């Protein structure tokens, strides 16, 4: 990051950040499949930092505005990367997202899913064994 902070450099970075955040917001809004709490929160925090950055620029408090830019970037870039990771899971995976915030799993529905998987595997295996026994005869 450049050492000399001028009104112009702060303005350009704020504008660039606003564009970056705007693009990310649009992408998140279009992604109907999922709403990740951490992405939404990071996006909101980044927007607040950006707004403070513009206010500090107007008041000519350039070093404060510069700090706002750094914080907004750290939050926005994090949100972008998390969102992209979720998109990969949506496109390529089976929607089993890695949660990075505390999410309570409901015991019974989760247990049911595992019982059901194990049961169908055993049924499948038993029919396979029967088929092989039949062939041997």
């Amino acid at each position, binding site marked *: 990051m450049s050492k000399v902070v001028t009104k112009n450099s702060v303005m350009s970075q704020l504008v660039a950040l606003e564009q970056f955040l705007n693009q990310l917001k649009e992408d998140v809004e279009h992604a109907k499949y999922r709403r990740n709490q951490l992405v939404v929160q990071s996006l909101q925090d980044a927007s607040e930092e950006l707004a403070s950055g513009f206010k500090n620029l107007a008041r000519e408090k350039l070093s404060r505005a510069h700090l706002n830019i750094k914080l907004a970037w750290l939050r926005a870039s*994090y949100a972008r*990367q998390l969102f992209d990771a979720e998109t990969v899971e949506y496109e390529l995976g089976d929607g089993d997202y890695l949660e990075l915030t505390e999410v309570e799993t409901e015991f019974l529905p989760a247990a049911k899913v595992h019982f059901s998987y194990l049961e169908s595997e055993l049924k499948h295996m038993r029919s396979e064994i029967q088929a092989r026994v039949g062939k041997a005869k």
Partner: protein
Amino acid sequence: MDIFEQIKSLAGDWLKRKDANEKLTRMLEMIADASAAVETRKSSFVGLAEERLKMAEEARKKALKMFEEDSMEDCEKFCERGLLHLQIASAHMLSEDQFKLEMTFDEGSAEESIERLSNGIARLKMAVEYSNCLVSDHVKEHLLEVVRQREEALSLYAEGGEEDAHRIAEGALLWLHYLGQQLELDNDKPIIQIEPIVKLSPKEMISIKTLIDSIVHCRSVLQVTHTRGYTRVERYLTAAMVNLEKSINAYLDGDADRVARMVTTGLMEARMADELLKSTGPDEGAYEVLASELADDLTIKGREFFRRLVILSRLIKDNFEEPERALNKLDSVNFNYKKCLAAMRDQDMSTASRCAKLAHLDLDYAKQLVIEGVIEPSYSDT
């Protein structure tokens, strides 16, 4: 000259050179011209520019009100605000593509550590989503803590506590390195490597990594051999983890002697866990890969079956009141399923059939207990 170029080129003291009447008139003209130009241009940032023009117009109206009330200082303030919004709108309209954000933080700075930590968390998530790998409760629990530490580091940095923020971010990066290693071992394939920041000499870093490797190794063995854990081994591993944490803190404090002591103690505990595990003997033999295609298929199925069984057993252990009976039945499912796999490999279909049936009956029994809430379940092969 293009209206946006004109607005952009206005110097900071441009407004100060005009009288109030002139300022308001010029503002009105510029807003009108810019609004008209926005409507005819194609740009990805028209929306952002329009928002700024609205804000500029609001500021102009307020300035006019102040002018009417003869409050010239406030009038000037709102004119300046309006001009700033106009300049932002122009910057949006003049950028053909998205502005490139070139944020490179100084090496070794707090913000660089926080960025590395953020990128590390995101990379780990991306790797998990991409590879669909198993994330154990142990990894998940620590990962949530790392995410929390990142937030703490950012808040401290925002409040001016750079040194503390830096320290927390570096510690969290070391944990992230550990989690990457654990993830690879749990899944038996390369997934992600996250390199921590080397603060002391490489010697201390290597010794901490050795401790991490030892703990990770024992945990990965424990995970595939004991569906319900193994209290004595877990006790040693917990103690080793405590020492790992202490050694990381000592590392961050730059205390090389303490790092050495904590690592040595941690390694002793990890070795005790390892010895105990060796003396019980691994019981994952049934899942080992054999040469034939059939064996490979059975191995893949076997591993997935066992993975589900472990998850289910842990869910029941943590959430179900009086879990013992159900867990015993799941142990029995595991035992018979493995025997069934072994019999299938030996082409002993009669044993395979009997074991598969027994596993199925036990699974159904456990299901009646847990899901259907039956107090005295019955065996039924329907």
